[in-house]
């Protein structure tokens, strides 16, 4: 019988370990399906795997959550640019899967963004000010799961929320991989 508690735990924790027992995993999948969700297998560092709650492929999360496609809360241009740079730096080989990607130092991402300037920003806005905005966006992306929470080595790692992107999203990124911000000299 579907048990809603593991589903609630997964929703609150974002990631849970894959159950060892097949029956338990099957029950979890059944519970997710009953709730109109699906389980996403997320690849972590060193081959670790975990489960995350996602939406079925035929469901548009924005439509379910009543989000306006034009005005997504939090999806500011700065946040989008920073995530694009993180993906550009952490995903050097577009033929490889997007996750888990390659951990990179934060400075590499910041340097990749150095040439990007939002129109309308004052000319006097220093690189330090812009970096403060980018670091703020990195913290926001970490909190939202698009990047892994900061660890002792302070490296940037792609987060489990990216596993929620459908094949079309990843294909779109793969097609535009060369355009993603990255350091000059890094493989495109």
């Amino acid at each position, binding site marked *: 019988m579907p048990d809603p508690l593991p589903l609630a735990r997964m929703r*609150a924790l974002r990631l849970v370990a894959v159950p060892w027992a097949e029956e338990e995993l099957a029950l979890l999948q059944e519970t997710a399906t009953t709730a109109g969700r699906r389980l996403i297998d997320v690849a972590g560092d060193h081959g670790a795997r975990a489960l995350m709650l996602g939406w079925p492929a035929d469901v548009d999360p924005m439509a379910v959550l009543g989000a306006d496609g034009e005005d997504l809360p939090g999806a500011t241009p700065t946040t989008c640019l920073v995530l694009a740079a993180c993906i550009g730096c952490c995903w050097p080989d577009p033929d490889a899967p997007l996750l888990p990607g390659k951990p990179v130092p934060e400075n590499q991402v910041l340097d990749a963004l150095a040439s990007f300037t939002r*129109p309308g920003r004052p000319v006097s806005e220093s690189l330090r000010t812009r970096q403060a905005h980018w670091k703020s966006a990195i913290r*926001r*992306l970490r909190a*939202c799961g*698009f990047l892994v929470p900061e660890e002792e080595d302070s490296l940037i790692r792609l987060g489990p929320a990216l596993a929620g992107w459908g094949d079309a999203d990843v294909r*779109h990124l793969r097609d535009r991989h060369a*355009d993603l911000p990255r350091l000059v000299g890094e493989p495109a």
Partner: protein
Amino acid sequence: MEYSADLLTANQSPARFHDTLKAFVAPVAKATDAVASDPVALRVAQAVCAAFGDSGGSNGMTRSELAAACSNAVSVAAFERRFDLFVEMGLLRRYAEKPHQQRYMIHPVSVTALLVYGRLEETNGVEEIMLLLDRAHRDLDAGTMTREALIEQITTVKRNLSIMADHLLYLAEDRPWEELVAEQSQHRSAKALLDKASSLVGAAGERFPELLSSGTGRRLVDEALRYFNAVNAFYSRLLAQASASRDFSMLSPEQYLSAASYRSRGELAVPLARTVFDPASMLLPAERLVSAVEKYRPAPPRRRPPRPPDSSSDQDPVAAAREREQTKRVVMEAEMELHLQGGDEADLTSRIRGAGWRGAARIVTDALLANADPGIPVTVDLSDALIVDAAGPVSHVTPMTLRRSPAASVRDDDATFAEAPRA
């Protein structure tokens, strides 16, 4: 919960305020129903007071004028029910004591009473104690307070505080939580009251030191402290219950603002330590990323396009080079012809010796270049001899003879690009 609506406003519920008024009037009441149970009664009096305050005239108001002025606040029926009682009890007085006089004035004491009722509604009398302390302090500073009057004031405040503290402890220990909720907005000035009491006792001790030694001042502070502790006990029970039921309306908005401003993040997190939240999330489709990159990518570096070939002249550079070479050969051949003067042979030695070093070098060089060019029909013979003329323009000269040779046919390529050896 029903009480929640009252918590963020200082007003008591009508029934509770009626109890407060009854207790307030009890010392002078003749019967138990001396206070009207209908809260509209007080509203009518307040409307009448407001009507007089807004009228701006000094001749009073007629009954109909009053009824019209009160119609926005209370119904006509409510006004009519209360009007005669107000006249009978003196809240409204005739402007002149004549039977035909139909204009009325409001009694100032009733205005004061309405202010007191308003305060009772908000503060349940605690503010009165504060005022008493303030007044005593002010009179003490002004030097108009006698020792006896001060003792009387302090004793009055002490007794009132004792009653308040007992009341709060009774509520905190023995009464249902709902009663505490109804009372909780009345006792938010405990710390200020304690401070005022301490301040008054300090000022009294300076003016009348014997008050301190007799223990009068200490007893006031002790009672204020007891009231302060009673308030704390009262709020502890309130907040314990509120915390257990996660009722965020227990504190006033100002208290939340103060906590947000001055408390640490850890302290603020305590109430929510056992609360489960959805993790932060954001809807961010991949196409939004690509759009942002396209929109904000740096402009590609500008490169100057290569300069286009000069199309103003259609002259072939190779032909031009051939032409220049041919011109040069013609000039040189003319010079050689000038040396020969139409003859077949000319001795150039004397010309070289008379031309100076610069001219000698040019004559020798041109002759040797002409000798090397198969297109110019001349040859040059250089003697092995050396003529030394230390005083002449050219001190050392090798005799040179220029001879005409048979014309040779020269191909264009050879004539144009034959490398002329240097002399």
